[in-house]
């Protein structure tokens, strides 16, 4: 990690609880960063994996609201949905997150935006799941097909 500047994304996988914490700083005021997380037209422009088309089914980002979006790759659709548990402008979003390919799994996500001097913002995003296997699968979710298949087999193993 020595080669990454303080501004770049930092990731911590907690050793004691199945949690991943991401921190990142932005050269933009908090209101803007918050808006980019709540306005679906902005959300589709940056969220989701590289090279995948994102389509928002609905995105009702307010306390008690819900969302669903679909990532499309090579004709395959991957759906995600969840509920907005607490949305407090411009500092906090607490939401659930489920990948529809594994509907029994759910992550509890917390996004905190802090104001920094000079009109900058620090983002802290934590994602808590109910098992270390789930957390580690989450960490590996961006890996190549071979690894994903490895997880599918592990899922089957754990379900059996």
């Amino acid at each position: 990690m020595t080669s990454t500047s303080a501004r770049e994304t930092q990731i911590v996988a907690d050793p004691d609880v199945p949690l991943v914490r991401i921190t990142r700083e932005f050269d933009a005021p908090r209101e803007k960063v918050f808006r980019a997380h709540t306005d679906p037209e902005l959300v589709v422009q940056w969220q989701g994996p590289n090279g995948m088309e994102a389509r928002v089914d609905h995105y009702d980002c307010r306390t008690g609201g819900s969302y669903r979006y679909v990532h499309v790759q090579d004709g395959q659709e991957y759906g995600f949905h969840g509920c907005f548990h607490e949305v407090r402008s411009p500092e906090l979003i607490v939401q659930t997150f489920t990948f529809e390919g594994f509907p029994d799994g759910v992550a509890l996500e917390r996004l905190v935006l802090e104001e920094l001097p000079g009109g900058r913002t620090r983002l802290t995003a934590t994602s808590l799941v109910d098992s270390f296997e789930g957390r580690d699968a989450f960490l590996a979710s961006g890996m190549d097909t071979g690894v994903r298949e490895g997880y599918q087999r592990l899922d089957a193993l754990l379900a059996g």
Partner: protein
Amino acid sequence: MAADALSRVFSALADPTRRDMVARLAVGDATVNELAAPYDVSLQAVSKHLRVLEDAGLVSRSRDAQRRPVHLEAQVFDLMTKWIERYRREAEQRYRRLDDVLAAMPDDVTPTRGQESPS
């Protein structure tokens, strides 16, 4: 690494006692007795945990030495670190796209909720 080998690594590391053993072996090799000392379980139970770690390729035991110390296969263990780094890079790419979105937004933006924006 084959998918089923990977599954074994994950299953092996899913158990807190085995994760603890791996953490201690990261400091240095240890015998089964030494590994068992902090736990209120039988040597047999510890051996069983070790067998799971061994089957996953996470640890090895030398065949000839009398003490047969347990050795952590750091290469396999490093895989976890690599995944985390890969995940970090993906998050960084995502946030660079967010940088661009933020730069393109007008300055007088109010943090409206998505629901209220016309679409």
